C-alpha cells in the first residue's frame, strides 16, 4: 500500500512542476523582462544571457525539461531584487514556516478535540450549538483579520504579547513560543474549525455503531466508551483532515507571516509579490506545494499504521 501510494505521487509531482513552470507562460509580455524586473531593458547582456539560459527559442517541452533539470539540481533561479539564489533564501526560511505551521496545527488540535467531542456527545444541547456556532465562526473569519484584531487587543492595548517579530528557538524557545503564539492562533483557527466539524460528524457516526452499543451494554462507563472505543475510530478520518489542514496552514502562512513579520517562506513570497520578483514567487510556490504533497504522503502512510484495515 505504501509503495502504491508512492508511485501514485510521482505523476502528481510531475504535473505540479508543469503547472509551476507554466506560470512563466502566464507572465504578461516578454517572460525575460518579467523575470529580470523593470530594470531589465537597460541590461541587454543579461537579457540575452537569460534568454539562452532559459532556451526561450526552443519548443516548450525542451524548455520545461531544462528548467526541471535545474530545479532537481537545486537551482531555483535568482531573486530579481536581492540577486541571491532563491534556493538559499527558501532553505533558511522553510524551517520557520514549518515551525509556525506545526504550532498552529497543535493549537488547532487542542481546540478541536474537546470541542468536537463535546458537540458530539452532548448532541442537540446548548453545548453542541455553542461548539458548532464557534466552529462556523472560525471558518468564516479571515485569519488575517483575526491577526489584526489580536494585535490591537493583545499587543497594543493589553501589552500581553509582542506584536511582531521572531526569536529563533535555538536562542530562546520560550520566547519563540511567545512570539509565534498570535500568528499560530490566527493561522490555526480555520483548521480548528474544520477539525471540530470533522470530529463531531465522524464521532456521531461511530457512536451509532454496534460495538459502541456493545461496550455500553456490558456496563462500561460513558467516558470509557468514548475514549477507548468511539474516539479511537473517529480519529481515523480526523488524521486525514489533519494532513489536509497542513496545506491550508502553509497557504495561510503567506499573509499571517507578513503581518507578524515572521521571517518564513510566506513573508518572503508576499514581499516578492510587492516587488514583482517572479523567480521567488515561482520557486516558493513549487517548494511549498512539494512540502504539502510530501506531508500528505506521510499522513497516508501513517494512516496504514493507525488503521490496520487499510494496510
Amino acid at each position, binding site marked *: 500500500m505504501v509503495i502504491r501510494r508512492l508511485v501514485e505521487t510521482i505523476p*502528481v509531482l510531475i504535473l505540479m512542476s508543469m*503547472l509551476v513552470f507554466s506560470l512563466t507562460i*502566464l507572465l*504578461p509580455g516578454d517572460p525575460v523582462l518579467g523575470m529580470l524586473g523593470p530594470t531589465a531593458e537597460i541590461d541587454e547582456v543579461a537579457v540575452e544571457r537569460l534568454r539562452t539560459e532559459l532556451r526561450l527559442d526552443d519548443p516548450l517541452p525542451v524548455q520545461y525539461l531544462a528548467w526541471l533539470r535545474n530545479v532537481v539540481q537545486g537551482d531555483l533561479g535568482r531573486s530579481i531584487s536581492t540577486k541571491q539564489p532563491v534556493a538559499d533564501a527558501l532553505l533558511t526560511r522553510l524551517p520557520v514556516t514549518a515551525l509556525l505551521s506545526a504550532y498552529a496545527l497543535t493549537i488547532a488540535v487542542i481546540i478541536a478535540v474537546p470541542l468536537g467531542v463535546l458537540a458530539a456527545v452532548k448532541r442537540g444541547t446548548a453545548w453542541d450549538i455553542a461548539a458548532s456556532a464557534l466552529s462556523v465562526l472560525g471558518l468564516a473569519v479571515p485569519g488575517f483579520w483575526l491577526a489584526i484584531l489580536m494585535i490591537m487587543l493583545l499587543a497594543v492595548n493589553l501589552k500581553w504579547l509582542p506584536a511582531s517579530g521572531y526569536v529563533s528557538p535555538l536562542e530562546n524557545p520560550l520566547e519563540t513560543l511567545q512570539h509565534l503564539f498570535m500568528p499560530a492562533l490566527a493561522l490555526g483557527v480555520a483548521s480548528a474549525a474544520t477539525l471540530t466539524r470533522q470530529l463531531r460528524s465522524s464521532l*456521531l457516526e461511530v457512536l451509532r455503531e454496534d460495538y459502541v452499543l456493545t461496550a455500553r451494554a456490558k456496563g462500561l462507563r460513558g467516558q470509557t466508551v468514548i475514549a477507548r472505543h468511539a474516539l479511537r475510530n473517529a480519529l481515523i478520518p480526523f488524521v486525514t483532515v489533519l494532513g489536509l489542514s497542513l496545506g491550508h496552514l*502553509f497557504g495561510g502562512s503567506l499573509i499571517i507571516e507578513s503581518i507578524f513579520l515572521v521571517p518564513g517562506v510566506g513573508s518572503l513570497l508576499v514581499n516578492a*509579490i510587492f516587488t514583482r520578483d517572479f523567480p521567488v514567487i515561482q520557486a516558493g510556490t513549487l517548494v511549498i506545494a512539494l512540502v504539502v504533497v510530501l506531508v500528505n504522503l506521510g499522513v497516508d502512510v501513517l494512516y496504514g499504521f493507525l488503521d490496520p484495515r487499510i494496510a
Partner: protein
Amino acid sequence: MASSTHELPSVAGVRDPAGTPHAFRVRLRRLNRDLRRSKQAIMGLTIVGILVVLAAAAPILAPADPGKPNLSESLQSPSLSHPFGTDELGRDILGRIIHGARVSLIVAGIAVGISLLGGVPIGVISGYWQGAIGSVLMRLMDAIQAFPGVLLAIAIASTLGPGITNAMIAIGIVGIPTFARLSRGEVLRLRSVEFVNAAISTGAGSTRVLSRHILPNGVAPVIVAIATSCAGAILTEASLSFVGLGAAPPNPSWGSMLQSGYPFMQIAPWLSIFPGLAIAVTTLGFIFLGDGLRDILDPRLRGR
C-alpha cells in the same frame, strides 16, 4: 426511433425519480418546503439576500462617491453621519463597505462560475466515458489540488499582474478541481444506478442520459458546493486584495480596505474592524446556506 420510449423507461419497471417533468416539479415544491424548515438555510438566504440587495442598491444607499477623498473629514471615529467612521482620505467607511459588497459578490460569482464551467465538464467526461483523456484531466485536478488554494491563487494572480479580472481568473482556476471531483463522483454513482442502465438499454444516447437522468439527480451536491465555494472565493479575494493583488484602488474591496487601514490600527481601529466584519458576515451567510442546503438535499445527513 420513437422518443416516447425514453420518456418513461419501463425496463423491468425501473423509473428515474427525476426523469419526468412532473417529478421535477414535485421535487421543486419539496425543496421549497424543506428550505423553510431549515433554520440554517433561512439564515444563509437572508444574509446573502440582504447583501445582494445592498450591492445592487449601492449607488442609491451610499450616494456619495466612495472613491472621492474629503480630507477635511479624515479618520473620524464612528458617528451619526458616518456610522462606521471615515478613512485616512475622509471617505465614509459604511459607504465603501456597501460598494465593496458589489466587488465581493461579483468576484465570487464570476470566479465560482469559472470553477463550475471548467470543473463539471471535466468531471462528466472522466466519469461518464472513463477514457484516457478523463484520467489525464483528473490527474491534473489532483495536481492543482495539491497546492494550497490561496498560494496557487496568489501565484497565478501575481504572475498575471494585479487587478480584479486576474483575481477572478486565479480564484476560478483554483476551484475547478472541487467541481470536477464532485461531478465525477456523482456521474460514477449514477451511471451504475438501475434507472440509468435502463435508459441506456432502451437506446438513449449519452446526451439524453446525461441531461435527462444524470443531471437532475446529481445536481444537489453541486448546488451545495456552489454556496460553499462562494464563501471560499470571498475569503480568497480578501486575501488577494490584502496583498495588493485584487481590486485596485480607488475601487473599494474589503480586503484592500483592511490593507490600507492597517497602518492606522492604533489611532483608527474602525478601519480594521468593519471591513473584516463584512467579510466574516458574508462568508458566514454562504456557509449557512451551504450547510442548510446540504441538510435538505442529502437526506442521509438529516438530523445530524
